[in-house]
């Protein structure tokens, strides 16, 4: 199969709807298994940290939520670029679906960070470089949601949000390297794929489980949102009407 026909297949909302339908149960099962399993493992079976005691256990939500919140933004910006360059309708739907998910994950990252900061740093909030840049990420998501809602014309909304998402992507490398550029309260990354991680393996393994679980969870919710968007946009087509009538019967 040539590249262009693969591309056209992926651009077809109908094909994507049917393909993603087969993927959904797998993603749902695996992500819940990894998230719940990783949390139980991390909360009940991992030994307490010698310095932070039990409070460190929030890492099993905080790190996955932050990582996926950032990854979601990159996905959104890439989807926006694909939509602008190749006019792929599906990319616009993916982009619209990501904004609320990403905003929620960013909020979760900020919230768990505050809860973790209170016992370890003695304060809910500091204006540290990484926290500030994640807050900016949250604002960027909110801005994109607000911009999308302001347009009545869907195509214009998608294109405008794509431009904004791409412009806002300058923030991502800043968040990623902020803890190394401005050494402050927030510690640098403990997990490294190239060197040795500075986190003990017994703590790392459940974190890997919740991290991959969170990525799968994001993929799952993203597919659900995108499918809803597809049905809404293609509601005048025959195949959507067939599905809806079939379910109603």
């Amino acid at each position: 199969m040539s590249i262009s026909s693969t591309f056209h297949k992926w651009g077809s909302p109908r094909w994507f709807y049917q393909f993603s339908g087969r993927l959904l149960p797998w993603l749902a099962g695996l992500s819940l298994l990894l998230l719940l399993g990783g949390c139980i493992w991390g909360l009940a079976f991992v030994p307490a940290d010698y310095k932070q005691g039990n409070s460190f256990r929030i890492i099993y939500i905080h790190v996955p939520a932050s990582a996926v919140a950032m990854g979601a933004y990159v996905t959104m910006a890439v989807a926006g670029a694909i939509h602008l360059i190749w006019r792929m309708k599906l990319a616009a739907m993916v982009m619209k679906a990501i904004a609320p998910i990403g905003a929620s994950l960013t909020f979760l990252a900020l919230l768990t960070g505050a809860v973790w900061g209170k016992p370890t740093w003695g304060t809910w909030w500091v204006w540290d470089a990484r926290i500030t840049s994640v807050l900016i990420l949250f604002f960027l998501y909110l801005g994109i949601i607000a911009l999308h809602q302001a347009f009545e014309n869907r195509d214009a909304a998608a294109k405008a949000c794509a431009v904004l998402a791409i412009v806002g992507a300058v923030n991502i490398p800043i968040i990623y390297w902020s803890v190394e550029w401005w050494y402050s309260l927030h510690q640098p990354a403990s997990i490294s794929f190239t060197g040795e991680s500075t986190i003990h393996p017994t703590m790392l393994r459940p974190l890997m489980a919740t991290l991959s679980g969170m990525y799968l969870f994001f993929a799952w919710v993203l597919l659900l949102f995108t499918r809803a968007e597809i049905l809404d946009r293609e509601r005048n087509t025959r195949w959507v009407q067939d599905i809806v009538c079939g379910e109603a019967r």
Partner: protein
Amino acid sequence: MPSAGLLSLILAVLQRDVIASLRRGSEWSNPLVFYVMVCALFPLGIGPQPERLAELAPGILWVVALLASLLATDSLFRGDFDDGTLEQMLLTHQSLYPQVLAKTLAHWMMTGLPLSVLSPILGVLLQLPPAGMLPLMASLVLGTMVLSFIGAIGAALTVGLRKGGLLLSLIVLPLYIPVLIFGSSVVKTAIDGGPYMPQLAMLAVFFLVALALSPLAICGALRISVDQ
């Protein structure tokens, strides 16, 4: 019509926009009045003690300048959009990039530049130490230019919407934050007697990146707004 040279095109648009803005008057004077008024609110709100004001002055002057520049940004493409000039700009065979560049620069000359020139007077009102005056002006000259380019992206995205004003601030403010951080830190470092050139150089980097790349985003956004 033969295609004009790049520089003469930029100069022509620049001249047209500056003259139009000068004739309308309120377009360039309103942000200035806003700047003065809001700066005057702070001593009334937080108390007139000189030491406290001096400590807060760099932040206040920068935040209010940012807000004044933001409020002025909404009108950047509005007039041209309403009377159809923008559509003509898109239709001509002149490339859009230099025209957008010139329009944004003209807008900065009528808002950011006067704000920067006026800022030492407000610095005196807010008890800003003399060591901070020149760095304040320099950081505002560079910083408001970056703000104009970022704001122009937002203005281009929202120009076709009826209620663009508040939305514009929602989408543009997160992008303004880095400029504010480096801009006010120039003034703070200068007051403390530290070397402020690194932060000023950072602002210059922001400016050069914005100068080169933001017109691309502005052109794209204008096409979307006019097409819809």
